């Protein structure tokens, strides 16, 4: 009874089925365009979508506690823009300082959202809907409708996203950040009491309260962490593109939420794993990068992406139902 067949492991585990989808996708794209699975192309994929990986980690936290944050694109723009303006006006600012500024601004943004959601009990979708326009407006306002362009950034800042010094000369700096973040998140969420508290709050907030978990603080922390990660993304984004515009990151929240959902995070809270989210983001990124490479018209990509998201969640439901049904059949009366 303890022995599980390989097939059961695959159908029973969300992660395993995601890996299969991933492999099928990769094999399909690689068979049409051999350039897809080259080291350079893979690095490019991780580098260009590093921001999405960072944001999905944070979004996962917020979704697990049963919340949502659709303002991350605006937070990204606001914090990234702040850092860029500092870099423009004080060219001697070092890279870590610029990153810290961006993270600090993001953290404050997230903290405010967290406070409104956790203490004032405003539904998160409404609060972040409002925050989305506030932060976007602020990003435009502080920049006074200007862009910060490549020539106004310091050399070191522009080079950061292209160099590999954090990765011992092998791995791109941004990818290193992503790897560290995912490992840290994996360990914290799975192996520390703090991580389990997040799941507890998402699974049953009332129960968490009576078992001594400070629910409002956990909520506040989750939104703040997401804000900090959005700030980090802002710095990564501006460093990667060597340009800072008020409208950057517009609409990224939907991609991030979609990646979480494909990765098995429940929008009702309580469920979601770091591995799943990582795989979900990878799938969404591969669709984004791979489809143009196999000559799918740009005008078809959106429809295909929508269809894949819908199918992914529907198939997941069907598999779950089949499993439940099989379990009932086994039950003897």
């Amino acid at each position, binding site marked *: 009874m303890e022995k599980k067949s390989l097939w059961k492991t695959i159908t029973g585990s969300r992660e395993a089925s995601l890996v299969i989808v991933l492999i099928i996708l990769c094999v399909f794209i690689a068979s049409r365009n051999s350039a897809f699975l080259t080291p350079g192309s893979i690095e490019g994929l991780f580098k260009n979508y590093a921001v999405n990986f960072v944001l999905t980690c944070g979004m996962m936290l917020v979704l697990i506690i049963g919340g949502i944050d659709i303002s991350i694109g605006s937070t990204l723009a606001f914090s990234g823009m702040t850092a860029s303006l500092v870099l423009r006006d004080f060219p001697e600012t070092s890279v870590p300082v610029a990153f810290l500024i961006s993270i600090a601004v993001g953290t404050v943004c997230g903290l405010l959202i967290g406070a409104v959601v956790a203490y004032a009990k405003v539904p998160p979708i409404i609060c972040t809907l409002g925050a989305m326009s506030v932060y976007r407006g602020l990003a435009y306002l502080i920049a006074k409708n200007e862009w910060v362009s490549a020539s106004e950034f310091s050399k070191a800042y522009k080079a950061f996203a292209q160099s590999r010094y954090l990765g011992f000369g092998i791995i791109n700096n941004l990818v290193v950040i992503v790897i560290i973040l995912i490992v840290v998140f994996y360990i914290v969420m799975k*192996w520390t009491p703090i991580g*389990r508290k997040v799941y507890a709050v998402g699974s049953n907030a009332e129960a968490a*309260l*009576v078992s*001594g978990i400070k629910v409002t603080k956990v909520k506040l922390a989750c939104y703040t962490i997401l804000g900090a990660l959005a700030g980090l993304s802002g710095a990564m984004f501006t460093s990667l593109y060597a340009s800072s515009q008020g409208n950057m990151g517009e609409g990224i929240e939907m991609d991030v939420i979609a990646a979480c959902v494909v990765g098995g995070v429940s929008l009702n809270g309580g*469920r979601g794993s770091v591995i799943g989210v990582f795989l979900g983001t990878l799938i969404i990124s591969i669709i984004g990068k791979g489809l143009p490479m196999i000559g799918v018209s740009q005008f078809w990509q959106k429809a295909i992406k929508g269809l894949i998201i819908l199918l992914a969640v529907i198939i997941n439901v069907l598999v779950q139902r089949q499993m439940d049904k099989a379990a009932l059949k086994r039950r003897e*009366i």
Partner: protein
Amino acid sequence: MAEEFILELKGITKIFPGVKALDDVHFQLKKGEIHALMGENGAGKSTFIKVITGVHRPDGGEIFINGTKVELKGPKDGQSHGIAAIYQHVTAYPHLSVTENIFMGHEKVKRGFIDWKEMHQDAQALLAQLNADFKSTDEMGSLSVAQQQMVEIAKALSSNAKIIIMDEPTASLTKNESENLYRITEKLRDEGASIIFISHRFEDMYRLASRVTVFRDSKYIGTYDVDKISNHDLITAMVGREITDMFPKPEIKFGEEVLRVENLCREGYFKNVSFNVRAGEILGLTGLVGARRTEVIQTIYGVEKPNSGKIFLEGKEVRIRKPQDAIKHGIGLLTEDRSNLGLIQSWGIGRNITLTEIEEYGNKFFTNDKAERAAAKELAESVDTKAVSLFDKVSTLSGGNQQKIAVAKILASDLKVLIMDEPTKGIDVGAKAEIYDIMGQLAQRGYAIIMISSEMPEILGLSDRIVVMCEGKVTGELSREEATQELILEFAMAKSLKEAEKERGA
């Protein structure tokens, strides 16, 4: 003195906006005793527990543990003083594993990281101690209520609690499971724990407790030795008045057969369930938890789909696919889960009562508030609810009054069959008698009533006929006259008895 009481509360007062939930309440818990706490719903028991565990901070009064005055600032403080509570509404994390549920808040941590292996082992050991039939890696949400309760007890054990509070632990358990719980509780006491046991069931108190404390209307009434107080006096203390006849079922002449169920099957739940009920008759449907009584009646009501089987109403076969079909055919359901399935808590009682039949008062498109209110007023008065106006929110009413509103709501429809699932669950003694009274009157008015209950006195006292189920099958049918507690139990445990016999034979 300090040695005698492990926990002592003096003059505890707790005020919520607009309500005094506890008013100068006293309590003393001896070391190694099982102390029953009784009182009607709304007497302040739940708030009292939350004060002890540190969830609520009292507005006045003192708490002593082992003779020293303590201040509990939060649930963590309560835990660190060895206080654990098993709450009435199971407070589990449905998405997490049993192990995590047991160790939530006090995980086993080695060098900053959770030691999953040891936690699983310990959890399994605790479950074995409780004779549990599930694994520590199972997901909490997949367990039954009784099993989840087991996990809650394991949770209390895992924290090495010295004071364990059990809030209505037997409410959703069957006789058999309750028996298991008694055994565990006694074992805990023998191992040195002190237990506060809250229950509506008198048998729980007699079986376990040595002393009993009674609350009424947020106030402390008294503490008594269990063997020195009579049943009658205790009820009087709780209710503040005397209750004479608990089961006033009038003699009624049965009419024609109204509902007949034939070979109803639902895969994985129940098989070949058949029974019938006549006008004016109360049919008791009983069994242990896991007998799938609720699943059967949910299928009849159209909430779930059967795989096969037939339902006849007044001799004609009917197909019921959704609850509104059932209501159209004259079948009404009083659900077991009042607060989630029966009533809309945030609404006034008037709108709740008329919800099912709004079209009756207005027309197909428009509502008619005036007609609705008139009807709601009449129905609400007929069940004698304590609400003041039709606009009182359901959530502000006590369990008993909520149940009366739920009854008024199903009476709004033109029904022939009333299915009442655990009609007195979680209701205090006074309200119970009133509900029984109403049921008797309804039978007299010619309704065919199917009553599901796990409470033996209720089944024996009210039913004209009793159908017993065991693990998805009907195992016996008894008339009022031939029914005894022993016979019912025998049928209810038919399967396990059979298995036991098989084993003996082998």
